């Protein structure tokens, strides 16, 4: 792993507090818990006083703790193919087996917080709807959300308006479940906090442009927690103010996340959660720093506007990298490669995540020919380590770093 950031301990405490709050809300008869997809309309939920739980974050924790691979077969036995999202299958497997990654954070938390409603946005994939529908059936609670456009080229006013209308339509059922009316001023404040948090997170990630980079993609995977789980919460904003200050201090001091940084890389696609540390250490040992990623940037929503909460939430959801066309993605990747000054791109072709594996339709070749950006493709998975081969990934990364070093 690259050099540890001092802010990490504060982040872990913050995340643990969030999980405890969800747990407490689920046990409080007056409390209300909403489960939300990671880039779903969380601002509505916070404005209505829900404690918000994110199954994707939970699934990533299952992956990072290497529990996921043993849990997936339980979901497979339930009829969920081993080829579909391993976030979903590991999470469902955990639920069936009475296991939660939250217990590792706080042993007093025995189970995931019982939801009163599940709210999704399909801007990332359809699996999230199938995933949430499982829990909707198990708990007998509503599953509502946004059916978002995918493969978006130009973000038109019509597309934004269509999504904004769906977000607005969520308000009445959510008000009924929350037992209170939506206060527009509260919503505006939450959206403002979300935007401020997002701006800070973007600045944190942009520190990777520095040479040497003070943080890596692997740091980002850890420190993005509050940007996902506490989006719209003042504590996340405060956390990123501190993290940004620490990173800016590193930049000023010329302090590298990876000692002797000689090769700079960009990561495209999902993390390999169960091998995050190993891959990070491997690359650090090769003096290669992964200075940017599409993944961590997926929680940057600068366009959120407290004066136009619904439209700006919709625009943020439609503009998301994962929901764009390949042509747009190609342009973004070429620009990101330039911005971060990388030698090449590491594409992770995650077997069970076709929607966030962007190397399957000729993108690496087009980027090499069009923008002169070389790349390597890792064949693995986000959570299912049965689909991962340590040796193959190691060879591919080492060979790619050698290639980049030769070229520099």
């Amino acid at each position, binding site marked *: 792993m690259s050099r540890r950031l001092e802010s990490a301990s504060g982040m872990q405490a913050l995340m643990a507090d969030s999980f405890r709050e969800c747990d407490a809300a689920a046990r409080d008869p007056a409390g209300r818990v909403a489960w939300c997809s990671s880039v779903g309309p969380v601002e509505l939920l916070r404005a209505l006083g829900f404690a918000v739980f994110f199954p994707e974050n939970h699934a990533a924790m299952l992956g990072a703790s290497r529990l996921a691979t043993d849990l997936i077969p339980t979901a497979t036995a339930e009829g969920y193919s081993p080829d579909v999202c391993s976030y979903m299958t590991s999470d469902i497997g955990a639920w069936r087996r009475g296991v939660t990654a939250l217990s590792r954070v706080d042993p007093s938390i025995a189970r995931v917080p019982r939801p009163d409603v599940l709210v999704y946005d399909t801007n990332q994939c359809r699996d999230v709807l199938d995933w949430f529908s499982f829990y909707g059936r198990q708990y007998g609670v509503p599953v509502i959300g946004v059916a978002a456009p995918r493969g978006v080229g130009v973000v038109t006013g019509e597309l934004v308006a269509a999504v904004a209308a769906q977000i607005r339509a969520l308000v009445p059922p959510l008000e009924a479940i929350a037992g209170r009316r939506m206060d527009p001023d509260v919503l505006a404040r939450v959206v403002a906090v979300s935007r401020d948090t997002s701006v800070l997170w973007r600045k944190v990630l942009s520190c990777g442009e520095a040479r040497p980079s003070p943080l890596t993609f692997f740091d980002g995977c850890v420190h993005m927690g509050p940007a996902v789980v506490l989006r719209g919460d003042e504590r996340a904003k405060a956390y990123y103010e501190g993290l940004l200050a620490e990173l800016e201090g590193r930049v000023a001091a010329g302090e590298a996340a990876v000692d002797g940084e000689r090769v700079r890389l960009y990561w495209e696609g999902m993390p390999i959660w169960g091998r995050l540390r190993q891959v990070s250490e491997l690359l650090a040992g090769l003096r290669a720093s992964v200075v940017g990623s599409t993944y961590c940037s997926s929680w940057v929503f600068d366009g959120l506007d407290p004066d136009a909460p619904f439209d700006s939430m919709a625009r943020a959801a439609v503009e998301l990298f994962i929901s764009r066309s390949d042509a747009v993605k190609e342009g973004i990747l070429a620009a990101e490669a330039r911005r971060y000054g990388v030698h090449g791109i590491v594409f992770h072709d995650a077997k069970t995540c076709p929607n966030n594996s962007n190397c399957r339709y000729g993108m690496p070749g087009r980027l*090499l020919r069009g923008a002169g950006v*070389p790349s*390597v*493709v890792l*064949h693995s998975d986000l959570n299912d380590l049965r*689909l991962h*081969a340590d*040796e*193959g990934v190691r*060879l*591919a990364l*080492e*060979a*790619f770093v*050698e*290639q980049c070093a*030769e*070229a520099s």
Partner: protein
Amino acid sequence: MGGPFFSGIDVGSSYAKAVLLDASGAVAAEAVRKTGVDFAAVAEALRVDLLEAAPQARGQVARTLATGYGRGNVTFADEAVTEITCQAAACWHLFRRALTAIDVGGQDTKVITLDGEGRRTSFLMNRRCASGTGAFLEEMAARLDTTPEGLETLAAAGREAVPLSSFCTVFARGELLSLIRAGRAVQDIALGVYEAVVRRIVEMARLQGDVVLTGGAAIPGGVLVRRFEAAVGHPVLVPPHPQTTGALGAALLAMRAREGQR
């Protein structure tokens, strides 16, 4: 020519190979052994093999570079580099032109592209499964109750390749069973096995320019080479010792490192 000498040790998943170069860059000795289960031991045995074949190099080996899956286990190596870089170095040394090198390894197959100045511009590896690799040939040989060498002999006598469609080695073994049950000539089945490997490789990348085929199965004039040429529609280049090109590349890089050229 005398010392100093430079050695390359390529501990692959099936076979371990070694090449010793003299100070002029000429090959002084080569050795090949089954890798087995003790990577360090096989590397040491190869070192002994080289020095027995070229006793003038005793005490004169200036630098050793290890490569292959067991590169981290070669305790006497000065440096370890991936086999992809070593294959590229060897193919450039042997052919000196823009080329696509295809190494059919035991565990995986690599497609490496070099530009006209010997720079690697890209590389690809086969996906997770064994189809298109030496392991596939070994598996199919075992199912046909023969050795990899025996499979080559059988296939050379084949007249019409029987198509094997599966990506999956386990499924392909099932296909073999069906073909045997259907009474298809075992020589034609063996030829079909090679054809399947070739199909998996040519779909890995759009092959441009001269193509170099390496690996233990790439016997000059052998079945794999002939089927490959038929698939791409033109002759391919095969090094004189295609099984040891990785080790040759390692020895060349060891020499270059010593000369401060890397």
